[in-house]
């Protein structure tokens, strides 16, 4: 980010605030571009992964090889689709809800280090910022469910409120473990720490358990796989975004894939050593190599999320709550305490 401001400063002889805003504009623009391209690729990838797991082909027609341009066609279709507004829905809330939902998750990407120098805002409380912004998205979903004046959407919104809020607690507790080991909230520090000490996952067994807990909690956070109750097709027709169509619906769709990306990225950065590789000194190499390594890990976790979605049935609302509070939370606390003891004694698990 500073390099960008510097570039604007001397190349275009622009004064301070204008350079700052220009730099931010380019960053946000490039991030938005990256996110939409990623979302289209992820949607196509999900349809192909689901298809091949179900002995069928998936999109084949649009574009040449294996229907690669299916997502672009869908996006264009959604652009031209009629944007319905239910008769006595609450117009204002109905209109704002998708925006809030998308911004909540998209803003989380601000504090994420993509490669050695590539980071929009090097926030010292990066992890804390991302978690709190993820909570904003819940407000948008409840607004959508309430505003669309349909009983099924209302049920979806109420389930969303119960599930996502209650799964942020185990997620936060599970994240305490890496923070405790590394000692800082800044995501850059995690990469640096893991460069010399090796991947955090191999640090002690409880970090592995907390990684699993965080992965499951983030699944529930972005309403995926066994926890996709707010948009349960077989019960609630399509949950909170039943009444949405056209571009508004695509915002919800985009949000789901971006939150998948954020949570996979967090798992990769915090537990599996961001852009570091055990044998290769990646930070010495040029920035794109780190970016490729990080994205490879992220897409592996996104694949695992998709794999889970097409294997497991859906949980019931009370089972989701029970699992959150009876299984994930207690084990989260156990991991935190145990890691604290391990750190104090300096025990290590593997000779790394």
């Amino acid at each position: 980010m500073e390099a960008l401001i510097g570039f604007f400063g001397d190349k275009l002889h622009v004064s301070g605030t204008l350079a700052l805003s220009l730099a931010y504009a380019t960053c946000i623009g490039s991030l938005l571009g990256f996110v939409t391209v990623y979302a289209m690729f992820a949607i196509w990838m999900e349809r192909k992964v689901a298809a091949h797991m179900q002995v069928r082909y998936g999109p084949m027609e649009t574009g040449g090889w294996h229907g690669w341009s299916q997502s672009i066609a869908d996006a264009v279709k959604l652009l031209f689709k009629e944007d319905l507004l239910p008769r006595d829905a609450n117009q204002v809330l109905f209109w704002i809800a998708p925006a809030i939902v998308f911004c909540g998750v998209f803003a989380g990407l601000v504090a994420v280090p993509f490669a050695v120098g590539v980071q929009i805002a090097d926030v010292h409380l990066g992890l804390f910022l991302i978690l709190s912004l993820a909570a904003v998205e819940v407000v948008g979903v409840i607004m959508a469910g309430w505003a669309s004046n349909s009983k099924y959407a209302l049920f979806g919104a109420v389930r969303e409120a119960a599930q996502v809020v209650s799964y942020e607690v185990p997620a936060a507790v599970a994240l305490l473990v890496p923070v405790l080991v590394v000692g800082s909230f800044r995501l850059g520090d995690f990469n640096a720490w893991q460069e010399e000490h090796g991947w955090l996952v191999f640090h002690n067994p409880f970090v592995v358990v907390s990684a699993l807990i965080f992965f499951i909690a983030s699944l529930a956070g972005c309403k995926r796989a066994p926890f996709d109750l707010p948009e349960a097709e077989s019960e609630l027709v399509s949950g909170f975004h039943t009444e949405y169509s056209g571009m508004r619906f695509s915002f919800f769709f985009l949000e789901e894939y971006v939150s998948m990306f954020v949570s996979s990225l967090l798992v990769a950065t915090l537990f599996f050593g961001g852009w570091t590789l055990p044998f290769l000194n990646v930070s010495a190499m040029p920035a794109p190599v780190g970016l490729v390594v990080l994205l490879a890990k992220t897409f592996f976790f996104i694949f695992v999320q998709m794999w889970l979605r097409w294997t497991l049935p859906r949980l019931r609302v009370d089972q989701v709550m029970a699992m959150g509070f009876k299984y994930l939370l207690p084990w989260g606390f156990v991991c935190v305490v145990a890691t604290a003891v391990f750190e104090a004694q300096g025990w290590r698990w593997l000779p790394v």
Partner: protein
Amino acid sequence: MGGIREYFGNISDALVTTVKGMAITGRHFTSEPPITVQYPRDRLAVPPSYRGVHILEQQKCIDCKLCAKACPVDCIEIEAVHHGRILEWQKFTIDYKKCIFCEFCIPPCPKDCIHMTAEYEMATAVNDTMIEDLLTWTGLRANDRREVEAGEAKKAGKPAPPAPEGVTPQPGGPAGGNAAPSGVVVTSAYAPGSPGAPGGLPRGPRKARDGSASPAAPAAPASAAAPAAPAAPAAPGGDLAARVAAIKAGLASKGKGPS
């Protein structure tokens, strides 16, 4: 104590069964090839015994209407004027909006002249086009017309009109190479031997037919729906005409007997 064991049992059970389930879908993702067929391009092979669109061998049909009576949904309508043994065909339509493809119309036919082909693609946008006419020709063919007039003349006592020289036996298919018949000679899509009948020549945009004996080779690409040969004896146009001629000869020889 049971609670604790059950608590840990749940955790291990959940993890083990999830992983086993993922193993199945993972194996399908990597090693099982997809089995779906991309429909308009590739089509599943349809067995010859498939019950699809009907086909009528009009020469053998004697307008007994048994098939129309046997139909549970009454979707067959037949109209023909009887001139003694000769039939002047108006229509033989099946309403495919009602037809349930139960093949009850096939067994009662005394002459065994209605069959079902393996053709199943009949989607159309307009309801009225679902009423399909199975006739190969309507009205009277030239040969039949002459016999009818000869009969009436004999009845009225006048001498029979002289037969034009060089009349060749009437091939079963569209009217032979003689004078343009008075009836509208039209070839139905699925009549035996006509292009487009399954197993027959590929169907394509139809050129106006003016009595030319051999069907002109249409330019449209080969897109015959049913690759498998249909059970119906709709052999390719060539040898069918020969077979029909043989039947005609047979009819002519025992024509004197009770028809």
